[in-house]
């Protein structure tokens, strides 16, 4: 991913910053400029909010056919996690035996390498999830 594109979202990728609609209170991740529920009524009223990092697995898969950047990691677990604040995101589940992942599993955010632009390129870091302690 191009350097500025990744860098621009560091606040959300490192620290799970989302947005809260000043009109209806819905929390979105990643942050939005316009609330999907309120439309124009929310413009200018979106607040920056940090998610706590705790969530539940809503669905998951074990990826075997991986993109080149993930050759070292396969097979790896991809999941949709519903955060305790209500919003959902897509991430990997790590530090777990793939065979033990279940819908409903509690997970917590961890900080891991997402990849890099080759051996000489910038390294990308961000959230992944591990089974909650």
């Amino acid at each position: 991913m191009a350097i500025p594109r990744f860098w621009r979202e560091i606040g959300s990728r490192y620290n799970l910053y989302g947005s809260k609609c000043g009109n209806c209170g819905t929390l979105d991740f990643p942050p939005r400029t316009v609330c999907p529920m309120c439309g124009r009524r929310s413009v200018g009223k979106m607040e920056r909010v940090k998610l706590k990092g705790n969530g539940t697995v809503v669905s998951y898969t074990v990826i075997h056919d991986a993109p080149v950047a993930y050759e070292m990691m396969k097979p790896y677990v991809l999941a949709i996690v519903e955060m305790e604040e209500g919003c959902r995101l897509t991430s990997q589940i790590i530090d777990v035996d793939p065979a033990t992942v279940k819908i409903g599993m509690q997970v917590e955010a961890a900080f891991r390498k997402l990849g890099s632009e080759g051996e000489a390129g910038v390294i990308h870091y961000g959230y992944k999830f591990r089974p909650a302690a």
Partner: protein
Amino acid sequence: MTVGIVSYGGYVPRYRITPEVIGAVWGNDGAAMGKGLNIRAKSVPGPDEDVITMSVEAARAAMARAPWVSPKDVGAIYVGSESHPYAVKPSATIVAEAIEAAPVMTAADFEFACKAGTAAMQTCMGLTLSNMYKFGMAIGADTSQGAPGDALEYSASAGAAAFLIGTERPMATINHTVSYTTDTPDFWRREGQRYPSHGGRFTGEPAYFKHVLACAELLSKKTGLKPADYDYAVFHQPNGKFPLRVGKQLGFSEKQIDTGLLVREIGNTYSGAIMVGLCAIFDVAKPGDRIFAVGYGSGAGSDAFDLTVTDEIKNLKKGLRTMDSMVKDGVPLDYATYAKYRGKIMMLGS
């Protein structure tokens, strides 16, 4: 004014490999190697872990233990390591963003083999004692490598520890610190080289022992205390034998050294070494406990610290992962997976 450790956080990756498994690949008696080194297993970082990810985990744990500290008051962050992911671009800036201390603060990376983390501690002491900043974060972290088939492969492991240093509400005061530094080429890695080199038996007497003993003596002169006055002692742990030997020579008992001697289960975490041991001690220490700590970094030098645990230790947030639970939460690997994770297999483009 007193300065000390305000909060601490440690991190050990989950994967392990034993001397037996390593020895089997290279035609050595792995069990004997393990016994000789007093190492039962060493920690291995996962393929998506590195010094930066581990430093962030440790730093976040330190901040979580002292929730009264605002990240914006952390004025300096230093990451000491000999396996920084970048040769140029500091690990510390990423940690700074990840704990939201950025941007009004200073940062840099340190290198001094296994004592880069303690050098960072001393720097933070100076910055906070002089009132330049409220708090400084000193991190020691490594994903150290031993060359395939080399003796160091049995012990070089991965781990991180972060200490929040400051003068406000320390949970352990650093009463004295002293250092002993010489130009001694016992262990080194040239720029661009994948694996380090070492001087074999030269790494013992003229290196580790000379510096640790000299530094320990300097510290004792400053404090005027005897080994029996301490509850815990932690020495740099490149294997499970050196710290016990040097401790014995100085007059410390195995019991005092036991709690911090993590090398037996997770190997030598290099820059994190005595700091990771101190984390294990802090997990169980009580107010009033005294700690004698002497690190060592090849190249060479020692930093020594005399600490007293304060009442503040009771105010730290409870329920966070302890070193013991992380050490015990180990998943054993075979050599092939270990080699893959550690990048020892040449991939296309490498």
